[in-house]
């Protein structure tokens, strides 16, 4: 029983990271139609940056926030490189993000080497639960709610949605669609960076951690058709929990595979039901 509770807690913590990362993918995809495969790199770069900033003597909090801001800036750069040239198709931009992800490996290994790194999170426990997991859940809830409010309740969010739905009409009303796309990359970068910063105290990071993160974040986002943030959160949590259970009761070596098969099953069931609806 105690083990089950612990697996659930771990799973939700990791699932929050997937959800944040996946939400970053969703924001970028919704506005630019680009699937950003560099999304995992935002998390890794931010996490590694925190280790350096803490070692340099920056206090907790400041180090994490700075790293998230850096990730947002890297998001902007990614957006500029991937979509900056007018007329770039979302498909070729996708390839560019893939290339940037590989380029990030070189930068990470150069600055931080190829060994796993970590840094301490929030110490202590509350009611038997490690405080850091509560922090992850709380920050994720607040940030995703704020992101949802940005889209639903502000004119800037409406303009981002408008850009996603009809770039021509968006331009016709005076929205700078290129700037909106770059803003989406900034938000996506920050969300990715936040995922890395939150998860690293409970799960070490290496330069290639981005693969697991982006695969799981992408799976979570796919559950929401790459456009639905609420389903992305649900998908992230589901993946995290299933992986924790598989790792706890079975083998850690199949964690990702089992989760992906599950996600595939969800997609097949859903495809069946949408076909029934449209038929």
């Amino acid at each position, binding site marked *: 029983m105690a083990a089950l509770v612990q697996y659930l807690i771990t799973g939700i913590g990791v699932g929050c990271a997937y959800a944040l990362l996946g939400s970053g993918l969703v924001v970028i995809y919704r506005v630019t139609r680009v699937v950003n495969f560099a999304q995992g790199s935002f998390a890794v770069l931010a996490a590694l940056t925190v280790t350096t900033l803490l070692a340099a003597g920056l206090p907790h909090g400041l180090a994490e926030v700075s790293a998230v801001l850096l990730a947002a800036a890297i998001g902007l750069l990614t957006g500029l490189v991937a979509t900056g040239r007018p007329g770039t198709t979302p498909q070729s931009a996708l390839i560019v993000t893939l290339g940037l992800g590989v380029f990030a490996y070189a930068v990470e290994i150069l600055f931080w080497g190829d060994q796993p790194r970590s840094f301490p999170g929030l110490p202590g426990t509350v009611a038997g639960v490690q405080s850091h997991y509560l922090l992850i859940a709380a920050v994720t809830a607040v940030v995703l709610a704020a992101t949802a409010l940005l889209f639903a309740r502000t*004119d800037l969010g*409406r303009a981002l949605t408008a850009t996603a*739905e009809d770039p021509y*009409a968006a*331009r*016709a009303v005076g929205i700078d669609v290129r700037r909106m796309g770059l803003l989406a990359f900034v938000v996506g970068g920050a969300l990715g960076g936040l995922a890395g910063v939150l998860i690293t105290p409970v799960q070490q990071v290496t330069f290639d951690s981005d693969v697991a993160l982006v695969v799981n974040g992408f799976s979570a986002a796919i559950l929401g058709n790459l456009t639905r943030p609420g389903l992305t959160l649900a998908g992230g949590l589901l993946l995290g929990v299933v992986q924790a259970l598989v790792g706890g009761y079975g083998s850690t070596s199949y964690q990702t595979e089992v989760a992906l098969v599950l996600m595939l099953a969800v997609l097949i069931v859903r495809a069946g039901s949408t076909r029934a609806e449209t038929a």
Partner: protein
Amino acid sequence: MIAGVSDLTVRYAAATALDGVSLHVADGEMVALIGPNGAGKSTLVNALCGLLRPASGTIAVRGDLALVPEGRHLFPSLSVDDNLRLGAWRRRRRDTSHIYGLLPGLVKLRDRPAGRLSGGEQQMVALGRALMARPSLLVIDEMSLGLAPKIVDDLAAHLRERNTVDGLAVLLIEQNARLALELCARAYVLEAGRVVAEGPSAQLASSPEVAAAYLGLEA
């Protein structure tokens, strides 16, 4: 003059869509632009609104210009009210209440997603969205296409009212040439990327060529 193009040429890759077109709209004037499918009307509109870069020629716009695009192009998942708000994206004040006063038909649609409205309702929203910019020139690309006569009459009445009450200038692109010539004092006829006739609507309507081609009358 509130807006105009002179000697405008626009190309899509190798194809020339507009070839040396000149056209202008004076303050408070309603001007019609008619012509067959593929004549280049939408191309002219998009260039005038800065959405398309011309190969050569000049575009001059004084004052604020708003577009009701061909096919309406609303933001489908956003509510009618949100669509209206975005019409004022360039402005600081985005209060929508005056639009419901101008177009009372929109009041009951306020919170509906724009994508789930009928064609006529959508065109009304598209008009409201454009009016939110408080433009001095309204450009409407294909006002009546696919709409029931009742709605078209409504839209035409709204345009006439804004023109007489606020002095709103209008450039109307319209398949229904009879309607366009009736509504607007002056008109241009565009064919294959060139202006082939222009002048007061009454004069154009009485020319045998225009009557035969656009009003369905024997030459």
